[in-house]
């Protein structure tokens, strides 16, 4: 197990460099340079060039990347071009909102999706199965932003039950979390149904049945444990994806989160902020995946042997 863990952790180091470099390279083609953003539209090209030279922006991309990485390793992700405030100080206060959205969304998608998926698999071929399959397919086909608009229309505008925008009370989080959790729970339900069916038709289930285990014992003791492995990984991936995907809920419901900050930075051509945010979320994604892999390996010796 230790060998596997060390190997898997070393594995992410090249990925860190690839991700940061790709993001850096993409952003280096951005139309906004420190000079053009800081000095505004009244500046002449000469002034902009001079400013860029002064901050070292005219050096080759590779040199700037090395510089950026050396600073980033010490926790310095650069400053906003226009205000000079460090990127970390700008972004970190926005993160808790987004984190809450993603955490609750993934929690509810598991609470709703897993029981439905299990039910559909156990009752395979019945109306309950067909019904949940159809509903989850429809829900998976609804774009998150439209679902958000429909919720807004129904619960705020028609029924007046929930506040349409802002943060503060738990009521403000109901619709954004639902917007993110509903499509995600449909996906989880589909996946649970699939892995459950696979597990139900495996040899150990037949053995357990032959030894006289009741259907309840088979589902809850034997099948569920094995079927949950890929689902745990999926939940981890959804969580990581929702941290980025929360931008849509934040936009609809006017929540000042991470995604909104990124969107603003993109529109103002604040390259350093976009870069810092993208790298932060990508690294977080990798760490979550690492954790999922380690959990999987802990629970399933086969994976360990294949990798180690």
């Amino acid at each position, binding site marked *: 197990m230790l060998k596997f863990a060390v190997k898997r952790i070393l594995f992410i180091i090249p990925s860190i460099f690839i991700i940061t470099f*790709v993001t850096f390279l993409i952003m280096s083609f951005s139309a906004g340079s420190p000079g053009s953003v800081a000095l505004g539209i009244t500046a002449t090209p000469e002034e902009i060039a001079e400013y860029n030279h002064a901050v070292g922006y005219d050096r080759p991309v590779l040199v700037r990347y090395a510089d950026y990485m050396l600073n980033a390793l010490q926790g310095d992700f650069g400053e906003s071009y226009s205000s000079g405030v460090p990127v970390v100080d700008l972004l970190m206060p926005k993160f808790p909102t987004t984190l809450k959205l993603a955490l609750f969304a993934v929690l509810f998608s598991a609470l709703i999706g897993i029981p439905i998926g299990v039910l559909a698999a156990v009752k395979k071929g019945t109306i309950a199965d067909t019904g949940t399959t159809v509903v989850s397919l429809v829900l998976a086909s609804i774009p998150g932003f439209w679902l958000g608009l429909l919720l807004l*229309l129904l619960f705020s505008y028609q029924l007046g039950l929930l506040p349409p925008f802002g943060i503060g009370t738990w009521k403000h989080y109901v619709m954004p979390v639902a917007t993110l959790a509903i499509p995600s729970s449909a996906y989880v339900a589909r996946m649970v149904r699939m892995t459950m069916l696979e597990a139900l038709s495996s040899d150990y289930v037949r053995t357990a049945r032959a030894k006289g285990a009741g259907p309840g014992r088979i589902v809850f003791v034997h099948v569920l444990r094995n079927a949950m492995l890929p689902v745990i990984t999926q939940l981890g991936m959804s969580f990581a994806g929702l941290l980025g995907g929360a931008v*849509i809920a934040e936009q609809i419901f006017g929540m000042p989160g991470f995604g909104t900050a990124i969107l603003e930075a993109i529109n103002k051509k604040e390259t350093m902020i976009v870069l810092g945010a993208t790298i932060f979320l990508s690294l977080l*994604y990798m760490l979550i995946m690492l954790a999922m892999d380690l959990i999987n390996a802990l629970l399933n010796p086969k994976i360990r042997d294949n990798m180690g």
Partner: protein
Amino acid sequence: MTKRRRSRQKRLADMAGQTNPAMDVWRNFARHPVSMAALVILILMIIAAVVSGFLFDYDTEVTALNPAELLQPPSAEHWFGTDKFGRDVFIRVMYGARYSLFFGIVTTAVSMVLGILIGATCAYFGGLYDIIVMRIMDSLVCIPSILLMLTLVAVLGKGMRGIIIALVVTSVPGFARIIRSIVLNVVHQEYVEAARASGTGNGTIILRHILPNCFGPILVDVLMSVSSCIMAAASLSFLGMGIQAPAPEWGSMLNEAMEHMRAYPYLGIFPGLAIVITTLCFNLLGDGLTDALDPKNR
């Protein structure tokens, strides 16, 4: 009489093992009314998308302001009502199919070709090339796709080109990985070894012997990718980073509708329904094909 003879001929052909595999899949597929309905709706949509280009004039009917008919509810004259600029929402939704179907189909086609190139060569040649390329692909997957798309659009500019490249970059790694694993399964089979032993070139082996056997398994992923590309493109436009107003892209229509949703909810309903129906049909088609291609069902 003739009918009976024909069925007898068919039975004889079946007995002789002369069935066409593509026909088998089609017959399996056609048995599911839901998948067939999805196929028919999609064909009608494609026809509507093509026809709307000839039927409506973009400058006068799709985007022109019409102050005389602002914000009218759905009626016999304007089926989906009119928006805040007096434009007919039905015409705009129909015209909008051109954008969404184009994004879905074109970006998926491009990503598939690139994915095949990358995945097949990785699996076939292996070694250091395989390790490096697949590491890059796996790392790209770690960047949250909506963020990667937003940054790409920010750099490339909002609009067609930006969206297409953003969607392709985010879809290629998935395709590359699937194709690589399929090809890895195929590459060591006897008929490939035989082709190699008889001196067939690498390119020919990949094109003639390996790829045709990958077609079935990736067909489903292709359809799923079309629907997720349509959704992603609409999301980008909804966030104001894709196709810009006044173009009738469904996502940007919903963005425009947001401020008037409280009083005129229909503005937010129809473009969204259009997206859901399109993506749902592609997903249903994918599900139907999964069943039809499953050897157990033949």
